[in-house]
């Protein structure tokens, strides 16, 4: 392992990865990798998570292709130094900010979107000119093996390496010095990563999670809007990896009197999308492994929680499947309402008034996303200004992930740092300030010995009071 990292450092030192042509060739190769291996990718995702090809394309393959293509088209623009304004006082001078690669970076990815969460940060790291060690999650073993075997066939082995293994490998990697660590995963492990990074003063980006709520206020608009709302909630809960997604809807907030309408709509949509019952379940991923399965099942063990189930609840341990399950008002102090669910269980919390959602959300730690289905412009403004989350999406779910122009990241317990689009490039770059000065003219008052005249001169200079400076120099101002 140490040898691999030493090689990455050597490669970076040679300066090869800084060249735009290298970066472009790597990105193009990555695109080829995806294009030429789609079927294998679909197969691996089906094996690890039971994802259908459409879900895999929508959430992984398509996302990555779009990301690489966008990066390739913008790279030259991003790499170019940006001019910064310089005040007249410094004349003649030129100031600019130049992005530079950080060096050797470490990317930890998660198991739920094993391709997207590994390769999207990789795209950013390469585009910024770094060498990379990628450590995919071993909880998605087929995908991890695929990455370990296939990346070396397409990308520059001396600059991009993939390491297989579990938590022990992760721990060993964290003992070493990196120029950046990019981590996607749980807050618990996020703390460990940051603590390890602190020893080397390594900057980190932590993409964590939280309980992302969906506020529902559109059920009494029109029937078609209500239907679309239900579709988008179902699509935002069970669509992405059966709820095992950092941006999946964790729970729903709705007004008491509309709860039954919502539940009915959700039931209908669930049946249409995923089948009538657990035996005929389709178009949906499964739970990743026994450990997660048990964790989710345990959330339902609490009798008060079990009592609140209004739909679903059946489980199949052998197939690691839990059917889409809706709960109505489980106890607020139950584990299902305090921990991130990360699975196919959807609690619906009723409120007297939908505006109470704001206080409810604020009583919990900052989520990665707040979804709000509402057409009330005042309410929208209140949600924006009175809550804090990584992102807010109005009237839809999940799609903000596809916007290259929106930064994707958390705040508070849901993480810090961001990526996607140019933000990926920035997150793996150092923005170096550069000031070019000429030797003339010389401003004498900069130098000691200090006098009252020099003091006044500098005071005026710092205020950019050019007129005052002229007066001073002409003798019309006294110190």
């Amino acid at each position, binding site marked *: 392992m140490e040898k691999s990292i030493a090689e990455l450092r050597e490669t970076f030192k040679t300066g090869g990865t800084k060249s735009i042509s290298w970066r472009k060739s790597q990105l193009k190769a990555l695109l080829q990798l995806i294009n030429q291996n789609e079927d294998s990718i679909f197969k691996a995702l089906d094996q690890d998570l039971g994802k259908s090809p459409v879900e895999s394309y929508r959430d992984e393959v398509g996302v990555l292709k779009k990301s690489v293509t966008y990066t390739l088209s913008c790279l030259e623009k991003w790499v170019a130094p940006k001019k910064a304004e310089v005040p007249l006082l410094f004349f003649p001078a030129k100031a600019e900010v130049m992005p530079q690669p950080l060096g050797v970076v470490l990317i930890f990815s998660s198991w739920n979107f094993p391709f997207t969460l590994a390769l999207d940060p990789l795209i950013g790291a390469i585009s910024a000119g770094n060498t990379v060690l990628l450590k995919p999650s071993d909880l998605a073993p087929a995908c991890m093996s695929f990455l370990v075997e296939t990346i070396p066939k397409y990308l520059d082995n001396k600059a991009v390496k993939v390491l297989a293994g579990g938590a022990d490998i992760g721990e060993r990697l964290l003992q070493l010095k990196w120029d950046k660590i990019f981590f996607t995963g749980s807050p618990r492990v996020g703390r460990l990563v940051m603590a390890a990074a602190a020893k080397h003063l390594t900057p980190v980006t932590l993409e964590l999670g939280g309980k992302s709520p969906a506020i529902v206020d559109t059920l009494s608009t029109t029937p078609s809007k209500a239907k679309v709302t239900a579709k988008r909630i179902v699509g935002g809960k069970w669509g992405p990896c059966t709820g095992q997604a950092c941006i999946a809807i964790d729970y729903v907030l709705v007004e008491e009197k509309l709860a039954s309408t919502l539940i009915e709509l959700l039931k209908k949509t669930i049946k249409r999308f995923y089948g009538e019952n657990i035996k005929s379940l389709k178009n949906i991923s499964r739970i990743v492994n026994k450990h997660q399965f048990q964790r989710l099942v345990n959330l339902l063990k609490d009798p008060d929680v079990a009592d609140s189930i209004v739909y679903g609840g059946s489980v199949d341990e052998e197939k690691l499947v839990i059917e889409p399950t809706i709960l109505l008002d489980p106890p607020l102090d139950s584990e299902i309402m305090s921990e991130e669910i990360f699975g196919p269980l959807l609690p619906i919390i009723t409120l007297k008034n939908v505006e109470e959602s704001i206080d409810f959300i604020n009583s919990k730690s900052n989520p990665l996303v707040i979804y709000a289905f509402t057409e009330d412009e005042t309410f929208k403004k209140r949600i924006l200004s009175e809550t804090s989350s990584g992102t807010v999406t109005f009237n839809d779910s999940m799609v903000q992930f596809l916007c290259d122009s929106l930064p994707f990241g958390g705040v508070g317990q849901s993480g810090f740092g961001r990526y996607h689009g140019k933000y990926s490039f920035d997150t793996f770059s150092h923005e*170096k300030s550069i*000031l070019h000065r000429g030797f003339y003219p010389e401003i004498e008052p900069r130098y000691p010995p200090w006098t009252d005249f020099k003091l006044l001169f500098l005071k005026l200079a710092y205020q950019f009071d050019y007129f005052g400076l002229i007066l001073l120099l002409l003798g019309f101002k006294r110190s």
Partner: protein
Amino acid sequence: MTSEVENKPVICTESAKELVKELRASFATGKTKSYEWRLTQLNAMVKMMEEKEPQIVAALHDDLSKPELESSIYEIAMLKNSCRLAVKNMKHWMMPEKAKTSLVTFPSSAEIVSEPLGVVLVISAWNYPFLLSLDPIVGAIAAGNAIVLKPSEIAPATSLLLARLVAEYLDSSCIKVVEGAVPETAALLEQKWDKILYTGNGRVARIVMAAAAKHLTPVVMELGGKCPVIVDSDINLQVATRRIIAGKWGCNNGQACISPDYIITMKDYAQKLIDSFKCELERFYGKNPLESKDLSRIVNSNHFARLSKLLDEDKVSSKIVHGGERDKENLKITPTILLDVPRDSLIMNEEIFGPLLPVFLVDKVEDSFDVINSGTKPLAAYLFTNKKKLKEKFVATVSAGGLVINDTTVHLAEPTLPFGGVGDSGMGAYHGKFSFDAFSHKKAVLYRGFACDAFVRYPPYTRGKLGLLRALFDGSILGIIRALLGWSKA
């Protein structure tokens, strides 16, 4: 640790917890988010500097023997500028930024909204104790946060003054100063903050970041390093020398994170360079620099001992070619130049942070880059040359927080340039709008409508949908039409 000056409340974990609780409650009222509050605070800060300049200068003189001009200009005037810039631009900075949306999410609109992070902690340093305490606070206020400032106990007069002035001029329900040393800092670091900005050294930075990790608190670290100056031949030597002196001894007597730490020049040029230094140093500080009022003193006896150790190392003490006089009682060391120090000496490996300037020799100027890159990344790097190619190589090869060509330290005054380090010299940046950004969360907002619900997103998943998804992601209208007509392969 209580102050020897007067009985001050000592902060412990319990009281630190209460303090944060109080600030969280203040923040929750929404007060700090209002534009008016932010404006009032920033204007009050300007007023504070206008009314209390003599006291500030006096405190800085107490702590550091800082010359009045350095205090007035490099601390007070710089801070005033910072406030004024924030006041002028804050409204604009606070406005949401529109973001483009693409076909994939059509129809939609998007924006990025800046919001305050919440309750933030600023830990400042002793060398520019006024500026480094309040400059980050300008950003934190402009971004709408509640703030705790922990000034350095190594500059006690300024720390005390800050506590008084902040209480007198700013809103104490939202901005507080906690004085103290290690125990107080530790108590503060146990609490959960929404951001920590730390200015200081790498050793303490690691402790701060480890503490922040427990609460997943993002940090900005403004650290230091050995800022090299490459001096090429064939330049205006007098101007270059003066600018190096201004950046070294003119900045708190070398006790500044961006002070030139050491010089790299060619063997054949060294003598000329040193002669120029001797000449200009005398012009600036007189024949007896120990008596000059225009030089700060060494901050305390610890640092005096540290610097003495650097000079007394065997292989180094014989390399002094100028200065080297010390006055232990008054904590003064004259501007000292050393020539041809060994690469493995202490003075060439530790950040000097004092009035000692080693000159390291190379055969040709291009060799400088390897010397610099063999060490950790500094906060700043400087080059004096007229050669275009050398400038280009310097910019491309040297990794540092900031680079200046043909001058030293002035980039600090440039608010359009982000000020921060990389690698061991730190992470994150501030100054100007970068300060506002450092203390903001940039919240992504996507507005969608109900029209055009893309059926292709939802189950049942069919091959047709797969084909359509491909076309949608490719952004090709033609592809979409073909997919809809069933003409493309899934």
